[in-house]
């Protein structure tokens, strides 16, 4: 049976103070498990994968509609697309990397931003109601791509020794604490960084989804006898959380891309 919260919410009989003695169907890890909707040669295809592929389709079709036949005098759609494109290009990439160095990374950052943002937005879209990025695999893939990009860039820029100097923050003026700093920096940069990069996005979406499910399910569960006002509170909270989540979704997409740019900037920086 699927643990999708929509199905939990549709378990009509489960209400507070009902005769069947049913407890609160609290959301949990099982809310992030999905039954395969199709199976192709042993490959189990589920809802999250479907949403990920729809994300691809949406991002591409929107930007194809906007930029496919781009005109010097833009239409409405192209103007919106350009605004989004410019936000990432100027607001994030040029800001951190500069125009000269940054230009190369614009396609990666633009696609990262919109891919992540749409993946997050699924959280509040009716019927979908699940942020794709709350499955660690998706942030992990993206963080890995960024990781490979900046690590290889550091090697290319600084060579083998330069790479380690860059990674460990080698600085002679630190004196006796230098070894300690180098060890910490090495771990923090090379090992912890990709993990936190992925988990930051994942955990935000994971927690947001739990909150949304919790309030949504509670709104229904409490809707019985004298607990009805509490159900009202829960419902208002659901609406408020949706608004808050919309904000968090955009911020997390922004932060992910901003961090990616910062890592690349670190890789480009001259070691002293």
């Amino acid at each position, binding site marked *: *049976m699927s*643990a999708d919260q929509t199905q939990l919410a549709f*378990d009509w009989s*489960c209400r507070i103070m009902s005769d069947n003695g*049913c*407890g609160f*169907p609290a959301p*949990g*890890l*099982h809310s*992030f*498990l999905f039954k395969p909707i199709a199976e192709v040669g042993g*490959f*189990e*295809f589920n809802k*999250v*994968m479907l949403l*990920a*592929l729809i*994300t*691809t389709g949406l*991002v*591409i079709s929107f*930007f*194809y509609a*906007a*930029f*496919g036949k*781009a*005109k*010097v005098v*833009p239409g409405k759609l192209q103007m919106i*697309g*350009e605004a989004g*494109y410019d936000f990432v290009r100027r607001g994030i990439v040029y800001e951190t990397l500069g125009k000269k160095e940054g230009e190369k990374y*614009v*396609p*990666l950052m*633009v*696609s*990262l931003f*919109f*891919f992540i943002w749409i993946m997050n937005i699924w959280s509040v879209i009716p019927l979908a109601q699940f942020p794709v990025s709350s*499955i*660690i*695999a*998706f942030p*992990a*893939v*993206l963080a890995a*791509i960024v990781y490979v990009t900046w690590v290889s860039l550091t090697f290319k820029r600084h060579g083998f020794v330069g790479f380690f100097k860059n990674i460990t923050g080698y600085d002679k003026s630190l004196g006796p604490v230098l070894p300690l700093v180098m060890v910490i920096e090495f771990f923090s940069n090379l090992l912890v960084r990709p993990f936190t990069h992925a*988990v930051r996005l*994942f955990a935000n979406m*994971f927690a947001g989804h739990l909150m949304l499910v919790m309030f949504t399910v509670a709104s229904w569960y409490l809707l019985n006898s004298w607990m009805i006002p509490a159900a009202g509170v829960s419902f208002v909270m659901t609406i408020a959380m949706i608004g808050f989540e919309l904000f968090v979704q955009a911020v997390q997409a922004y932060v992910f891309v901003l961090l990616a740019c910062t890592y690349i900037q670190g890789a480009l920086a001259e070691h002293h």
Partner: protein
Amino acid sequence: MIANLVQLATESEQNPLMPPGPELLVGTIAFAIVFFFFWKKLLPNINKVLEERRAAIEGGIEEADAMKTEAQSVLEQYKAQLAEARHEAARLRQEAQEQGATLIAEMRAEGQRQREEIIAAGHTQIEADRKAASSALRQDVGKLATDLAGKLVGESLEDHARQSRTIDRFLDELEEKAEAAR
């Protein structure tokens, strides 16, 4: 049903930080498609258009600049021409005034001269007429007097009178008297 779910969750030993393989694959593919589409098709597309727009705007500005410069030079030319024309007009007016003044002066002088000529001619004529009349009168009076005296004396005094200056002297005296009386 809930018990069923809890059982499922505990059974699978689910770790939300362990990425499941199939999702990794799908995620990679999904993002790769987006990335390559942006990289190869959409962003070159829009960058070209943005570049064109920038060029068009800059071209427009340059064109406007050129037109402004041209307008300025035309205006300066026009102003110079206008000033020249004003200057020319003033000069012509001045010249005309001067010419007019000389013309008037010349005409006045001519008029004056003609008037004087006419007056002089009148005077001469009058003088000549007076002289002619005076001499004619003198002859007539002389003749009348001699005739009269001849008749009184009974003989002609004509020859005598012609030979003597008596009559003239008498008349001169008369004239002198008349002059004195006046």
